[in-house]
């Protein structure tokens, strides 16, 4: 396999594949991770990769388990498989508040896990939560691993220096049956982010700004490594936010090389290595870096020191602008349709857009640090009279930790609803949805038409920005409130 390709190489179809797995002299982190999971490689077929951790939830797994059953197969490694209920769990009222079909999906997951011996964090249990929040907080997500899940935001786990990506239900069935996945080789893309983030600017703004620049398909066929001083200075939570949204610009996976921030986060987590095993693991983890001089197929550079808080104005995450800006004039049919759906006119100041709802939640931005950042903005203030605002912690553990430090009291005093953990209004599979025409400031990852409820209008932003919008009743530059 060549070590470098021209920057402007056209996208091949199929992507480069079946390439030999002989290690390159100077390797990228992504290719090292790939190589260390190759069970079998031949020129004629995709590489067969071994999966270290398979995360499972109620929505994309029932058909896979049924496929297994019909073929008389069993789960090969239930000990490398972890299930949770997240996508359609109600965030108040418990399982009884779920509609009949959602409840059925949860029951089927529980039954499948029971039969196959798969650990399940079900609704009501203390470790339940969004699949991409609980993996890291339980210490199941570790550097060097290959992690898959039937969910496109699996790229989140790449923040730990893991190779992690979303798969479809047929692939879920493949992994359940064989613990392996045939995959074609992908290309390397580096995003270099340098500079100190200004006050009020977060990891969310880094990734929204990036997608605003690249558009929503630039990452196709690539494994992305986020690098540079800005990334190094981010917490694990911030790195997860960025890796989480890799799929929003089309990338298969996003990752950050592990460092002391990663190791401190992991140490003493329930599933992290202990004692001598920790030291052995640490030695290995420190080697998981892109070699100096290794070539990427493409590189993108971002100056973080001039970034501003971003908000989306359209119906995909690439339709985004600094909050100090205005709704742009449409440059394509897609833009025109988006403005129509969003009921926005070109030239309108983004900060003049009134909102009805605020959602602080999702696998992108519902970790403890996110809730703290939002709480800092709202402390001592009150949600605007025309706004209904809710906080949905990413996991039951996050909820408990937030309550231990009194964040729930801050949110409730300000007029926020304080809910139980789940995906909730990120995708509105549970009862938490927007009414048609309602406009929402949301910390989630997708602003597609109807994503948060049919006819609903979503503006993506960071937790502090969403908190600020809740108070003022319109999109606003959070820096005015700091």
């Amino acid at each position, binding site marked *: 396999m060549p070590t470098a390709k021209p920057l402007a190489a056209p996208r091949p179809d199929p992507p480069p594949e079946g390439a030999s797995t002989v290690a390159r002299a100077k390797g990228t982190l992504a290719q090292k991770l790939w190589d260390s999971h190759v069970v079998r490689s031949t020129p004629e077929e995709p590489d067969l990769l071994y999966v270290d951790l398979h995360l499972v939830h109620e929505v994309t797994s029932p058909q896979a388990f049924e496929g297994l059953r019909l073929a008389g197969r069993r789960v090969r490694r239930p000990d490398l498989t972890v299930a949770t209920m997240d996508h359609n769990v109600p965030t108040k009222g418990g399982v009884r508040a779920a509609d009949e079909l959602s409840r059925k999906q949860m029951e089927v997951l529980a039954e499948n896990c029971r039969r196959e011996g798969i650990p399940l964090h079900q609704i009501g249990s203390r470790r339940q939560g969004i699949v991409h929040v609980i993996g890291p907080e339980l210490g199941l997500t570790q550097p060097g691993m290959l992690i898959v899940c039937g969910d496109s935001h699996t790229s989140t786990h790449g923040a730990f220096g893991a190779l992690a990506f979303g798969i*479809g239900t047929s692939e879920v069935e493949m992994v359940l049956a064989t613990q392996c996945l045939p995959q074609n080789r992908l290309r390397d893309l580096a995003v270099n982010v340098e500079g100190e983030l200004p006050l009020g600017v977060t990891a969310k703004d880094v990734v929204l700004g990036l997608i605003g620049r690249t558009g929503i398909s630039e990452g196709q066929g690539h494994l992305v490594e986020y690098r540079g001083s800005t990334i190094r200075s981010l917490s694990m939570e911030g790195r997860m936010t960025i890796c989480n949204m890799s799929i929003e610009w089309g990338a298969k996976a996003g990752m950050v090389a592990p460092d002391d921030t990663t190791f401190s986060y992991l140490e003493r987590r329930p599933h992290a290595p202990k004692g001598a095993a920790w030291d052995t693991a640490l030695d290995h983890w420190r080697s998981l870096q892109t070699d100096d001089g290794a070539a990427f197929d493409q590189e993108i550079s971002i100056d973080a020191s001039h970034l501003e808080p971003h908000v989306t104005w359209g119906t995909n995450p690439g339709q985004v602008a600094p909050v100090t800006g205005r709704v742009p004039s449409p440059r394509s049919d897609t833009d025109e349709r988006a403005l129509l759906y969003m009921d926005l006119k070109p030239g309108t100041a983004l900060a003049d857009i009134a909102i009805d709802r605020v959602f602080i939640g999702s696998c992108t931005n519902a970790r403890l640090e996110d809730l703290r950042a939002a709480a800092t903005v709202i402390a001592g203030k009150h949600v605007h009279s025309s706004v209904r605002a809710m906080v949905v912690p990413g996991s039951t553990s996050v909820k408990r930790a937030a309550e231990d430090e009194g964040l729930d009291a801050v949110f409730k005093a300000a007029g926020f609803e304080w809910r139980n953990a789940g995906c909730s209004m990120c995708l509105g599979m549970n009862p938490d949805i927007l009414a048609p025409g309602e406009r929402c400031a949301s910390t989630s990852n997708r602003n597609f038409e109807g994503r948060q409820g049919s006819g609903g209008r979503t503006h993506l932003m960071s937790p502090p920005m969403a908190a600020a919008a809740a108070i003022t009743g319109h999109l606003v530059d959070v820096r005015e409130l700091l």
Partner: protein
Amino acid sequence: MQAVSKVTGRMAPLDRADVDTDQIIPKQFLKRIERTGYGPFLFYDWRAKGDFVLDRPEHKGASVLVTGENFGCGSSREHAPWAIKDAGYHAIISPTFADIFRANAYKTGILAVTLPARQVRHLIDLATEAPTIEVIVDLEKQEVRGDGFAYKFDIDPFARDMLLGGLDEITLVERHAPAIGAFETQRPAWLPTAG
């Protein structure tokens, strides 16, 4: 999976880019535990608004969906290609597909074919102006052809073999059980287990 070597039929033009999986099959229809029955909910919200292009009489019964770039972006829900196939579309032609969607489409037995943007434009215009015209999406010859044109396409050779042979990929991988077992014995001891 059923073997598929070609799809012959009329084209339905969905002339827009970046069609995401939330439009293809909205979340409220992901609650079934079966692989079938999603067809009526394909593009549910767009169809509910009325006069949706795929519902126009002249495009009823089409089996080839022709659409803009980055088709299938967004979530990993395989319900998207299930719904498309359920609704009678057995081939999709686009300048580019989102990676996960394309993989899912192949597993569903849908011929997801990429052609250069100008050829896709020709097909969309043709489908709009002459909706009764039939095309053949020929996987064996790797071409889309109709009256007066034949467009060659590239496709992942392994996916092509799987589709042409109607092969069960899990059975193929299970043949490598000895290699998988050997790999497992060499995995580092510190790696987490779920118990």
